[in-house]
């Protein structure tokens, strides 16, 4: 994919190309989140929870719009591709569990797995980048964190009600979705080009913005494991699951 990016300020072309790709990944991820929350309305019976899911979808929409507006301000071209290899796989995984009307599994994917990655990655990006772009990522990271906390109590109760059964479910959802997320954040492109970044994948040019994929992935997995701890998944189980992920 060829592109011409306007290069504002004193940063290098490579810097802004990496920033554009980061925005592309962030906006695509937010739109996947928006679609996921919207899909939840089909399987929720409780009216208040349904309203909450719509509010969350609206919140993800707001994040996507915020990222897009900031990218446009800096004249960065954002590539939105919900059919990109990894994001499409994550959406399909969510829809499989939604098709089974498994609300807890859907919450695990959207609010634990995806949000763990969003919170930690936005935070690192925010800390690495100066000015209003960094501030925006930090602000959205904080908002996503509230989604993460919101779901933990619900999932903890579900685990207490059926420890063995729920633990097995978390494992199956982990295998289904975290494998794809782990590949998305892996050092190599296990499934080929992501279909979102321009040219080569941004994970190979993150050093231009003071980041690296090992640290981004590490922080995300760290937060994910801590979230599983808070739900009550035994540490030795989540350890084994994480150790078995593709690298």
């Amino acid at each position: 994919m060829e592109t011409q990016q306007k290069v504002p300020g004193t940063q290098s072309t490579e810097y802004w190309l990496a920033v554009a790709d980061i925005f592309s990944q962030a906006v695509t991820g937010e739109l996947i989140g928006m679609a996921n929350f919207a899909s939840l309305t089909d399987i929720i019976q409780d009216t208040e929870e349904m309203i909450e899911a719509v509010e969350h979808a609206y919140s993800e929409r707001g994040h996507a719009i915020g990222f897009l507006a900031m990218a446009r301000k800096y004249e960065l071209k954002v590539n939105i591709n919900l059919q990109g290899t990894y994001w499409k796989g994550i959406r399909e995984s969510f829809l499989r569990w939604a098709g089974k009307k498994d609300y807890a599994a859907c919450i695990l994917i959207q609010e634990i797995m995806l949000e763990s990655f969003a919170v930690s990655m936005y935070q690192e990006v925010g800390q690495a980048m100066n000015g209003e772009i960094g501030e925006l990522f930090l602000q959205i990271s904080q908002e996503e964190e509230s989604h993460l906390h919101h779901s933990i109590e619900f999932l903890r109760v579900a685990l207490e009600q059926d420890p063995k059964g729920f633990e097995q479910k978390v494992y199956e959802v982990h295998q289904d979705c975290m494998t794809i997320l782990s590949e998305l954040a892996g050092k190599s492109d296990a499934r080929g080009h992501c279909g979102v970044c321009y040219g080569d994948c941004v994970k190979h040019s993150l050093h231009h913005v003071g980041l690296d994929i090992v640290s981004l992935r590490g922080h995300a997995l760290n937060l994910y494991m801590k979230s599983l701890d808070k739900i009550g998944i035994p540490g030795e189980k989540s350890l084994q699951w994480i150790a078995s992920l593709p690298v």
Partner: protein
Amino acid sequence: MDFALIGHQECWENINRFMQALRGEEAKKISLDEIKEIYPWIPPRTVFRVKVTSLYSRKQIKGVYIDSFIPPDHLKPAFLRSNLHRVQEAAAYASREKAKIAALGGFTSIVLEGNILALQTDTYPVFTTGNTLTVAFICKGVERACQYKGVNPRQASLLIIGSTGDIGSGCLHYFAKKFQKILLCAQHSVSLNTQREAISSVAENVMASTNANDLIPLADIIICAASVGTPQFDLSKSRSNVIVCDAGYPKNIDFSPALNKSPYLFYGGMGRVQGGIESEPDLPKAFYQHPLPHIVHGCLLEAIVLALEERYEPYSSGRGNIRVEKIEEIYRLAQKHHIVLAPFFNAQGLLSDA
């Protein structure tokens, strides 16, 4: 939960085996470089659950091993803050497991400078550094090695490397009156001189140096208990028949037999649970390369002994507080439950006295 054992791995080779075992035999092996990119991000957590049976009371107690996931190359002062945070997280994990008592193995107690009260909460668990039983196993091991090799302590010189540390000073208290000459080595000269002056009132012949190489040639017996991230001392200038107890974690001695003069070197501070230890999942065999099963570091065993005795108390705490009476007491309690001095071994396997 009766007890928790908090620890860390001493080298990447162990971690490599451990991570491959976690992935299972069917999974694709990952390289050590890839492991080094994953391991440091893992938050402290329970790695396996254990059951220990006392052959004395037939009582079975349950516990967990919690790894702090401190990478071996972070075992140095530059990482003090992050290591401290990890120990606090591991302690919180022990609390989450509702362990009644928790031992702090290896560097996890060192980063606290013995101040385990900083971890104490209103509820679970009570913390112990476990250093008293480690000292007991070191001292009893040295005595046994002397007996085996026909060394009379009254005519021999004992060198303690890391003498001002909690374990080193515990060994000094135990041996101060038993050897003809005491040689002390520690990194910081002020505390070393203070220690030398204090012990001179009890021991007749005391020498001290911050340089181990000055003292190694003078020693008949060497106890290594220094807090070092990697092996730092070599025995190329040691006496040919020297007895060496390397109780460091990570190990202190750069042990390359080709360079040395066949020392009698064993890894000290270790005990063996004769009643056996059951682990679920069975990971210890993947990362502990001991020549016999059920061998565990003394510091961790101290929590097990105290749990078997239902004595949930900070038996070892602070720095420099280990005295002979408590060494003898914890050793006697361990023996009672058939937790005994481990057979002598080193990297090459069991030794002839094993």
